[in-house]
């Protein structure tokens, strides 16, 4: 036991002291925080007041543009060349010109300094609305006020309510659950490979160094194997912890430094995005999330959000840790076995193929799983131990029956015990084999050997 502790501490300390570890650990939270902060800053900045001069030869839009605190409109008619010169030399930032034509929605925009994307999309959407009204009135003779009343009445909204085993009801947000599920699936996939890969390289390093012979004359191969796997697992957990704490610290820091900008964070952000996004589906999605944020209010966001999930945050984090750890343990033990059997990384790639295929397959399947989290595919993939970490994490936010979750966990643990037994046998033989290209058939022989 003492030996295993020594090995764990060496594996842990040499990795944690590495420059690459320190840099990655510090940079990721900064990137993370930047991802959250920068869009808000960009959205609030770059929106200065704009004076728009409208010249409409078709006389549809005159006096119809809606002003707001960032945009004001003036209207003139006459020779565009002259107006253009005067307006841009004067107080106006842009001149919007509708030439006389049958295509009454087309316009030119003149400017000295390029206006923001937002202005352009805002103008376009205003023009579309006005043109729509204009056509209703002039071509179809429809009364605008009546049309708007009818339109307001016909606003459907479907509330998603999930019923759990006990008959309790919960409003759910399928879209958000799906997205969160997919993100969780990808994240767990990434981390399993990142850290299990380190185990593989560690085993190969010891074998290529030939230090392994000295080591196993002092300790049992199983101690060396477990020490390495546990040491690297601790490196991973340390990194997680630092990332979470740092991201929170940075975000809180920024929030303190610029509280005003973050008060409007959710609102402004979605509005801006909506204006610039034309794709109707996207707008819908954003609409949903906007509705959600509006519904939440400001006080207890976390508590409120958790109301919308079939599973609590704590449960989610616990499940994430469980499946990350067991998934990592299973894959790292398998990788260690492979690493011990191979002489170099190229050889090992060939051997890891059959192991990593199931996980790769699951990643390809993440979308279908998220779309139908309780379908057959999702069910089976979340039961098979090689695929269950990713599949189960993808399903979790949408709610998984308790028995399925427990069964999946039990299978995972059983499989882990089997894999460690298997890996220990292969590892014991493999680390002393040199210069031999090993096949899976050969490895199976080692397992039965003795």
């Amino acid at each position, binding site marked *: 036991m003492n*030996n295993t502790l020594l090995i764990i501490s060496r594996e842990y300390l040499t990795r944690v002291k590495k420059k690459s570890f320190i840099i990655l650990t510090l940079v990721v939270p900064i990137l993370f925080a930047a991802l959250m902060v920068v869009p808000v800053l960009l959205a609030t900045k770059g929106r200065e007041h704009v004076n728009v001069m409208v010249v409409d030869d078709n006389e549809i839009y005159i006096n119809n543009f809606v002003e707001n605190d960032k945009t004001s409109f003036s209207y003139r008619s006459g020779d565009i060349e002259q107006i253009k010169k005067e307006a841009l030399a004067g107080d106006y930032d842009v001149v919007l010109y509708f030439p006389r034509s049958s295509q009454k929605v087309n316009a030119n925009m003149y400017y000295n300094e390029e206006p923001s994307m937002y202005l352009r999309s805002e103008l376009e959407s205003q023009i579309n609305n006005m043109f729509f009204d204009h056509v209703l009135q002039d071509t179809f003779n429809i009364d605008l006020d009546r049309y708007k009343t009818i339109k307001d009445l016909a606003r459907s909204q479907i509330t998603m309510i999930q019923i759990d085993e006990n008959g309790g009801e919960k409003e759910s947000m399928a879209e958000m659950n799906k997205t969160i599920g997919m993100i969780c699936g990808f994240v767990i996939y990434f981390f399993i490979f990142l850290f299990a890969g380190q185990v593989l390289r560690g085993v190969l*390093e010891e074998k290529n160094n030939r230090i392994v012979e*000295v080591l196993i004359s002092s300790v049992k191969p199983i101690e060396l194997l477990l020490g390495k796997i546990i040491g690297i697992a601790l490196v991973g957990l340390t990194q997680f912890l630092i990332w979470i704490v740092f991201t929170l610290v940075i975000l809180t820091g920024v929030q303190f430094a610029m509280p005003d900008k973050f008060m409007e964070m959710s609102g402004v952000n979605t509005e801006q995005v909506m204006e610039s996004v034309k794709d109707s589906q996207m707008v819908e999605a954003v609409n949903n999330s906007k509705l959600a944020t509006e519904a939440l209010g400001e006080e207890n966001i976390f508590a409120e959000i958790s109301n919308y999930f079939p599973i609590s945050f704590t449960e989610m984090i616990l499940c994430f840790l469980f499946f990350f750890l067991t998934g990592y343990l299973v894959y790292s033990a398998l990788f260690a076995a492979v690493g011990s059997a191979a002489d170099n990384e190229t050889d090992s790639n060939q051997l890891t193929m059959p192991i990593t295929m199931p996980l790769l397959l699951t990643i390809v399947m993440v979308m279908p799983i998220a779309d139908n989290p309780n379908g057959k595919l999702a069910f089976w993939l979340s039961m098979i131990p090689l695929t269950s970490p990713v599949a189960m994490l993808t399903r979790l936010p949408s709610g998984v029956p308790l028995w399925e979750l427990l069964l999946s966990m039990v299978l995972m643990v059983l499989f882990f015990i089997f894999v460690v037994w298997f890996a220990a046998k292969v590892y014991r033989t493999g680390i002393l084999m040199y210069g031999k290209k090993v096949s899976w058939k050969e490895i199976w022989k080692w397992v039965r050997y003795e």
Partner: protein
Amino acid sequence: MNIIEVQNVTKKYSNHLALDNISLAIQKGVVYGLLGPNGAGKTTLIRILNQITAPDSGTVLFNGNPISRRDIEKIGYLPEERGLYKKMKVGEEAMYLAQLKGLSKQEALERLKYWFIKFEIQSWWNKKVEELSKGMQQKLQFITTVVHRPDFLILDEPFSGLDPINTNLIRQELLELKKQGTTIIISTHNMASVEEICDEICLINKAHKILEGNLAEIKQRFKENVYSLTLNGECAIPAFPDKFSVMETSSAVNQHHYVVKVLDGGSANQLLQFVMEYGNVMSFNEVLPSMNDIFIQQVEKYNEELGINN
């Protein structure tokens, strides 16, 4: 008292026999040479002594009891393929390996200090292993092999890759350890070093033990009544009687050197009497076969008996 007794050990790998019913005993305090051509089974035997692999049948006794994990702290092992973590610092790595052998942190530090001062390498402590030359790494590896003061040292080709100065340094250290009572087993192809430091040897070929015993005694056993003599005289000896066969002659001014084999029916005294008539005998020695000759001769003989042509 034997520190190690190997009893009827057999080890088979999937397609070949590595050790076939090998038995041998190593007395406390001797330097024991484990010899044999490549692929003879030496490394397998060493791995069994280190408990890296287990024999298929047979037992190994350590101090009279079946060898167990507890004995690991009393064994030091220097494998043929040297290896260290390249990215670790010299001091950290030495501490790690010493602690794995059961030393406490404090003990490890003290003993490493002793060795680092002895080898005058204190300045390496904070260097990375990869910055050291190959010879320097060998020194470090030697220290990590002996730092826990093992009763039993297993060295696989300890002198390979060392320059003459470091070879000498390591040899001195080995003799010093022997004086302190350490039993040392050396596996090597370097016959010169075997003759210099080994007390006993064991020759393994094709998974079998073909020769074992005290080095001096073995040399006696394989001697072929060959004598080397130097004569101071005016002229060379024109002819030797039939019972003496001349193997080598060389002459300098008034100095004549002969290597003569005494055949059946002859004796060393007769040879001496015969040559005395031709001048003053300056030297007269029995020529014992070198370990190198014995090695080659025995291995070839064994292979011939098996009907194997190399």
